[in-house]
């Protein structure tokens, strides 16, 4: 055990830690811990009041046990007690325990907040910092509610110590991230921005993180920060390496602050003021120049810090995308790094070049590095670096180098890591299609893909090759010949059989003239694969066989023989059996004309964007697609397909990918557009409003719709707030609704919000929510969105208070079977009594206490007010905590109301 040189040295703690370390087994460790827990528990429960030191020591032991990975369910109270100790060391341990082991126990949070409040107002900077650290570490909503108002004041007050300002700035940032609605900068904005000018570098370093985050959300309010940031940056960049004293890191002046300044500037377009812009360009040039200077130290820290600034500057240059000179210089600099001996730099250079490749100014410059990148793909020893190289090749690909890049990617696929194969396959498929000059090259490439990495070729890929072959008659003969040859291989992938079956079934006649690929040879080749294939492939092959009968009458008897065999006609799989029976019958009774009509060649597919491309597409531009995002995208595609699948017969060849994806909107990405056009009515937000009246109904990357509503008797008023989240205006903005509505402003400026009021009258009870249709143009693309307005029958409840006796009497009166609706369902949320109560109150009924004999159950009563009639309703909710289930029973004087209430509520708990 090392001598504890510093601090207070809690010896009991050190001994305990030693003991744990000496434990030979997990069991011994658990035994020792249990012994300690029992000891601490008895100390905490004991009659003798513990002194501060002991309390601190035990709390610290508990913390240690928790950090070892064990559960701790006591000691919170003792930790909270330590917070109000006037001894710094005890307070500090108390805060540490709270920071690490918060739990949402509301009683405790109040006590903690009290202690924090005291420390914040203590005017002792050390105590204030501790309290601020605690808020920043916990960052809960309760804390935001308690302190979001106070902290900005501390941050900008003239007499606040620098260290406290630093903590306050980052504390506020954390609260803003968790509860942006509670942190209102308003009057403080300009004083916060001016912290960029603060004398103390530490204050600037902390404050700038806050300012960056706030600028991202409210760019206009904070835009004065641009010129301040530029002048600060310029002072740092031009300072000698010793000027900034302790803020110089291995001869690099203020690297963290420089990076943060450059990052802040990336929240804005290039400065409009010519002088500011000139100064900034000068800074960027200086940073690029410094990269060429000999290093001031051999230490890796020196080069890392220097290059961190360089990469951040390059990010800014790419963000502006308007200075061709700087872009090309950036590209040359990265080119040097591509062959650097530091793996880290090679990795970052490849990554950064990906974004440069998509700028028109630097695309050509990036392309000059193709040989180096291909070499990296072949020789880098680290898979994550190879992945970057593959991304960059994809990003720099165009018509001029497509053949080379695709060939390299294909050869890399043979040995590629399993983790990136699927993505590589998609990339090759996309590049091959996008830059195909002659389609025989395209067909070769895809068949090669299937041969090399068949397992990773998804449906989208082989559907697509078939679509293209069908649409281009110049390639059909070649495709038939090539696939026929590919099928000769003794072991060929099932995906190859699928493509082969389809193509030969359609175009086998184009190669039938050659005796080496006569109809019977083709058929026998396909059928030799049949028994090794899965059911869907066999089904496809059966369809190919019936097409053969049509194309080549001479194969009819052979194929009928096959179809007639027991293994087909009596196949245990219904689909296969049905196909065999039907095809056999069709081939026997239909005349040649009928057969020819039924089995006519497939008509060309409507031209549409490749579904593979849709799969790989991502907002950030080509190249940067991670596996994770691919998966998400895929899941999303499948969902959409699920909605629009009209019949199973249409699903072959990607018809089920739905209507064509419309022209993409600028920058925001086509993902949105196709979600909009496919999703039909969006009712995600709808159910959240059953028990509440205000909130956000809908939000995507473009638009946010907020709602405020109030109801009285059978009347209601709803305020809809449409917020434009982009910097581009929405034009011809219209909303239509089957409820009376005042028209909305037809134009929403970028970043602005418009309001619409809807008056609602409930005429009679209803189940369907009114639909709100929203249309607008964003950057030329029409956006169309239909939402369910959260107007539900329970909004018109008047609560009715009644005693137990009355309740049961009325309950009995509503005893007709159709008056009752009941649902038993699993809990979707934690079964917290307070939350349940709040939800039931939000429903609008009266929550009746002391009515149900079982105190765990909830009963409610209310009358729904409609213009036509009043509908009395009673409700009983029985939670079963053990099974995590609920039983919900609703009785109303009107059966439709019971049913509807039950449906709505079953989704809420």
């Amino acid at each position, binding site marked *: 055990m090392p001598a504890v040189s510093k601090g207070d040295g809690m010896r009991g703690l050190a001994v305990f830690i030693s003991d744990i370390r000496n434990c030979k087994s997990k069991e011994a460790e658990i035994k020792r811990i249990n012994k300690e827990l029992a000891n601490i528990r008895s*100390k905490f429960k004991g009659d003798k009041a513990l*002194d501060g030191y002991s309390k601190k020591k035990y709390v610290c032991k508990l913390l240690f046990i928790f*950090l070892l990975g064990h559960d701790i369910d006591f000691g919170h109270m003792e930790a909270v007690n330590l917070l109000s100790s006037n001894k710094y060391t005890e307070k500090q341990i108390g805060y540490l325990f709270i920071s690490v082991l918060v739990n949402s126990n509301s009683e405790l949070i109040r006590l903690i907040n009290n202690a924090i409040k005291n420390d914040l107002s203590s005017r002792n900077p050390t105590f204030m910092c501790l309290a601020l650290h605690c808020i920043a570490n916990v960052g809960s909503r309760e804390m935001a509610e308690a302190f979001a108002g106070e902290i900005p004041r501390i941050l900008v007050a003239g007499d606040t110590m620098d260290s406290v300002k630093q*903590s306050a700035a*980052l504390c506020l940032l954390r609260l803003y991230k968790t509860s942006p609605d509670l942190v209102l900068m308003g009057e403080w904005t300009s004083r916060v921005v001016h912290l960029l000018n603060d004398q103390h570098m530490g204050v600037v370093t902390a404050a700038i993180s806050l300012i960056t985050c706030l600028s991202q959300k409210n760019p206009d309010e904070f835009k004065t920060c641009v010129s301040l940031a530029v002048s600060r940056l310029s002072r740092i960049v031009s300072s000698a390496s010793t000027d900034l004293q302790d803020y110089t890191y291995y001869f690099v002046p203020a690297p963290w602050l420089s990076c943060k300044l450059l990052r802040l500037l990336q929240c804005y377009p290039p400065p409009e003021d010519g002088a500011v812009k000139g100064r900034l360009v000068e800074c960027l040039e200086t940073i690029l120049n410094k990269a060429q200077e000999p290093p001031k130290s051999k230490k890796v820290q020196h080069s890392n810090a220097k290059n961190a600034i360089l990469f951040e500057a390059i990010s800014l240059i790419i963000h502006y995308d308007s200075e061709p000179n700087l872009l090309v210089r950036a590209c040359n600099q990265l080119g040097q790094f591509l062959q650097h001996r530091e*793996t880290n730099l090679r990795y970052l250079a490849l990554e950064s070049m990906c974004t440069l490749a998509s700028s028109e100014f630097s695309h050509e410059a990036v392309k000059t590095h193709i040989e180096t990148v291909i070499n990296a793909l072949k020789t880098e020893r*680290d898979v994550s670096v190879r992945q970057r190289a593959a991304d960059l090749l994809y990003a720099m690909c165009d018509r001029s180098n497509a053949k080379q890049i695709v060939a390299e990617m294909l050869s890399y696929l043979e040995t590629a890591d399993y983790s990136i194969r699927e993505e590589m396959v998609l990339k090759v498929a996309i590049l091959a299609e996008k830059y195909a000059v002659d389609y025989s090259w395209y067909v070769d490439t895809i068949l090669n893909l299937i041969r090399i990495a068949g397992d990773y070729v998804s449906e989208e890929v082989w559907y697509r090759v078939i679509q293209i072959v069908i649409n281009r008659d110049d390639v059909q003969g070649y495709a038939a010949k090539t696939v026929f040859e590919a099928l000769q291989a003794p072991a060929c992938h099932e995906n190859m059989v699928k493509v082969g079956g389809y193509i030969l079934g359609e175009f086998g006649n184009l190669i039938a003239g050659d005796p080496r690929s006569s109809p019977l040879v083709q058929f026998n080749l396909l059928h030799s694969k049949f028994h090794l294939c899965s059911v869907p492939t066999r089904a496809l092959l059966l369809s190919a066989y019936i097409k053969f009968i049509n194309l080549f009458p001479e194969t009819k008897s052979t194929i009928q023989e096959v179809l007639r065999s027991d293994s087909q006609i009596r196949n245990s799989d219904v689909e296969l059996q049905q196909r065999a029976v039907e095809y056999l019958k069709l081939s026997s009774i239909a005349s040649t004309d009928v057969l020819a009509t039924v089995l006519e060649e497939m008509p060309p597919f409507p031209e549409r964007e490749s579904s593979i491309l849709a799969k790989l597409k991502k907002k950030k531009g080509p190249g940067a697609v*991670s596996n994770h995002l691919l998966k998400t995208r895929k899941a999303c595609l499948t969902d959409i397909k699920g909605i629009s699948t009209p019949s199973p017969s249409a699903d072959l060849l990607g018809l089920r990918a739905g209507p064509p994806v419309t022209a993409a909107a600028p920058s925001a990405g086509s993902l949105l557009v196709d979600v909009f056009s496919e999703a039909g009515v969006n009712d995600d937000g709808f159910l959240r409003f059953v028990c509440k009246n205000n909130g956000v109904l809908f939000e995507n990357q473009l638009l946010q719709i907020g709602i405020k509503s109030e109801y009285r008797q059978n009347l209601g008023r709803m305020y809809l707030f449409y917020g434009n989240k982009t910097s581009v205006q929405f034009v011809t903005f219209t909303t239509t609704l089957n409820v009376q509505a005042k028209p909305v402003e037809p134009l929403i400026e970028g970043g602005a919000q418009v309001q619409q009021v809807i008056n609602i009258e409930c005429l009679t009870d209803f189940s369907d929510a009114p639909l709100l249709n929203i249309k607008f143009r964003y950057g030329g693309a029409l956006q169309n969105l239909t939402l369910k307005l959260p107007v539900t029958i329970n909004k018109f409840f008047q609560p009715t208070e009644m005693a137990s006796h009355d309740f049961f009497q009325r309950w009995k009166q509503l005893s007709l079977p159709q008056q009752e609706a009941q649902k038993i369902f699993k809990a979707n949320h934690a079964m917290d009594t307070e939350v349940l109560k709040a939800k039931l109150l939000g429903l609008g009924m009266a929550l009746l206490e002391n009515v149900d004999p079982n105190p765990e159950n909830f009963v409610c009563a209310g009358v729904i007010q409609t213009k036509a009639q009043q509908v009395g309703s009673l409700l009983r909710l029985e939670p079963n905590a053990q099974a995590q289930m609920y039983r919900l029973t609703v009785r109303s004087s009107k059966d439709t109301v019971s049913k509807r209430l039950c449906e709505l509520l079953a989704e809420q708990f």
Partner: protein
Amino acid sequence: MQFMLLFSRQGKLRLQKWYVPLCDKEKKKITRELVQTVLARKPKMCSFLEWRDLKIVYKRYASLYFCCAIEDQDNELITLEIIHRYVELLDKYFGSVCELDIIFNFEKAYFILDEFLLGGEAQETSKKNVLKAIEQADLLQEDAKEAETPRSVLEEIGLT
């Protein structure tokens, strides 16, 4: 930064700091997964990797791995130097720090980190200023200690 983990070559977690709200189960899952991933990497490999939708930046110092998870737009190299500065701070405070110092004085390791990084952002990058804050606290601690009553013998040998 979303979180920072310190773990040993044997995969023992020595320090964990989370700057985003996650439940204990999720934290344990992430830790397990990352420790495994990072320990499996060979020495000369690059210090960055993509993991879920985050970027992982890690570096090994003697027997300890320091591992940070940052977001897409964050700077990898400067994060690497955040790790280094933290190591320097520990080293300066403990006087040539070793893994045992962090095990036995884990609370100090947390205090130093809180002075340096707050909410996942650099709060104070000057080594002098951070150490001054910690030493001030230690001074307060010394004062408080003198005022305490002598502890029992039992306590000294760790039986309470």
